[in-house]
């Protein structure tokens, strides 16, 4: 019964670059409609792990994955699975806002169109922008360039673009690290709104952000062979209040990293 509550499960998931193992045997169960944060010092493989979830690492030459990544009991690295399908089901928001150099409208419509969306595009655009709390700010300038928006607005547009293709999971790779505190807060509020419908996995450098915005937290650390691994994964309160690993405690209290 509990199994149905997991959006993604990993079984001994390891990520290698050629002979070098970047992330070692990750076993995580990510709960549906919750926000899971991945924290850890720089270079510990947080982003690498996140990108493995929607097979963005496929583009990195020499990168390959061992172990299993299960979405609805299906191994996303299985032979019959096309990475394009994975990325449609698991959307991604990047560290730096990267809207397409097109109009605001086109930014949302393009993804929908290439994925074969057949409904009313205007409605989809409005719905997605509303869901990303951007509609009121841009409704009168849908045909204007997405580059004319502020950084925070651009990042919310990227979220709207991701929502528009109706993924099951949204991955966020430090989505607020390039934004000012107010825009950051808006993104965090938006995440709380989005988790009603989506499962969110977020990589963050910002301890406070992980503490206030996430339900679960995975702590990653690098070993002496420079391979990252998840050393502790629990609900966020436990990680920040009563971590069981000394290294986690040192890190979240600011004594390390």
């Amino acid at each position, binding site marked *: 019964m509990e199994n149905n509550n997991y959006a993604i499960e990993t079984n001994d998931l390891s990520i290698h670059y050629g002979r070098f193992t970047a992330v070692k045997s990750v076993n995580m169960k990510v709960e549906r409609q919750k926000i899971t944060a991945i924290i850890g010092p720089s270079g510990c493989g947080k982003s690498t792990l996140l990108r493995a979830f*929607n097979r963005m690492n496929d583009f990195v030459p020499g990168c390959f994955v061992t172990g299993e990544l299960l979405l609805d009991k299906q191994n996303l690295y299985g032979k019959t699975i096309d990475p*394009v399908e994975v*990325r449609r089901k698991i959307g991604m928001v990047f560290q730096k806002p*990267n809207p*397409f150099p*097109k109009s605001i409208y086109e930014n949302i419509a393009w993804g929908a169109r*290439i994925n074969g969306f057949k409904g009313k595009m205007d409605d989809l655009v409005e719905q997605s922008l509303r869901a990303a709390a951007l509609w009121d700010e841009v409704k009168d300038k849908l045909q204007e*360039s997405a580059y004319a928006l502020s950084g925070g607005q651009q990042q919310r547009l990227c979220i709207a673009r*991701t929502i528009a293709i109706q993924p099951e999971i949204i991955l966020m790779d430090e989505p607020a690290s390039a934004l000012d505190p107010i825009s950051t807060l808006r993104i965090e509020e938006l995440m709380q709104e989005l988790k009603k419908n989506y499962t969110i996995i977020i990589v963050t450098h910002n301890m406070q952000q992980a503490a206030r915005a996430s339900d679960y937290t995975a702590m990653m650390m690098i070993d002496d062979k420079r391979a990252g691994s998840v050393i502790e994964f629990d609900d966020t309160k436990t990680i920040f209040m009563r971590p069981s690993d000394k290294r986690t405690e040192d890190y979240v209290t600011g004594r390390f990293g």
Partner: protein
Amino acid sequence: MSNEKISYPEGADFYSALRARYRTAAIWLSIFLGSLLIAIIALTALIFNVIDGAFGYIAYEYKNPPTEFTSTPVNELTKEELLTVLKDNLSSGAYKKLDWEKPMESRTQADLLELFLERLVRIDTKGTWKMTESLLNGAEIRAEVAEKYPDAILEFRSWLTPQFLVSPMSSRAEFAGVRTAILGSLWLVGIAILFALPVGTGAAIYLQEYAPKNWFTRVIQTNINNLAGVPSIVYGMLGLALFVRVMEQFTSGAMFGVTDSNGRTVLSAGLTMGILVLPLIIINAQEAIKAVPDSLRQAAFGVGATRWQTIWHHVLPNALPGILTGSILALSRALGETAPLIVVGASTFISVDPDSPFSKFTALPIQIYQWTTRAQSEFHAIAASAIIVLLVLLLSLNATAILLRNRFQRRW
């Protein structure tokens, strides 16, 4: 760590050091300025030299003044009048021979006028002078001509006239024009770009977006870079062997039912030029594709695009201005190249316009080269005029390409 005190010059010491620093800067600045001046002087000299040759005095004599044949002034003669004059004054044998070469009725007024001046009036150029000579030593030239050739007419003329642009080739500099050469050059550049732009862009897309990064790709990449520097005559040899000889069935048009031609066509030359500019276009297109930020590709992949959708909808549109910049460079190169054309077999004397890919042809650089090698100074004058035409053509083709590029360059 040593405990020595760190000290910097202060006060007067500081200022004397500062003056020395400024002096060094001033020396370098003057070197840079000097380099710029040299470049400007070289370019000015080039343009001046060309213009200097295209205008100036010409002294000529009529062996038989035109008034002996007709009362109408020479430049107002109509086709009909010319026909009558020629028929009346040429020996019937000579007329029949001309008529047999090309029926007199079907010739243009310019052709007939040329025949009239060449065969009957027998214009005879005594000398030409460059623009600066003509302007500065006008009096001396007039005196000299009056003394040496009392019957000669001395005129200050521009060799670059509308007539020059629309006339075909002629054996007499006064009547020669560059129409055939302009059309030949346009055909040539057109075929070269039509061939090289899609092929080069395709190769660049493959190399940049698909090719695995291994030693084989690196070998190919290095070769492409080196090919860009191969002397153009080598491409001429390739064109001769491949397009003129091996692919003659295709390049002569025999495959398409054209019978009166061999492989030395504008198509062969255009394809040779296409191969010549291919490395240039590939390298530029690669740079343009490389300049498209990866974040854009990731954004597209992130919403479930395939690689091709990413390339077609995002990479190519954003790389297009850069690709077109490369094709501008390629165009300039193709327009100015001479050596491969000589090898591939451009005609040096041809008065028939190219009207299909299977035509014989000549091109502007070929004409210029040919005219500058002639002994008579009037040919040097029309060579200078043809250079001006070539430069203007180059600038206008480039301007077209830049306008096209700016149209595609929708800034967001």
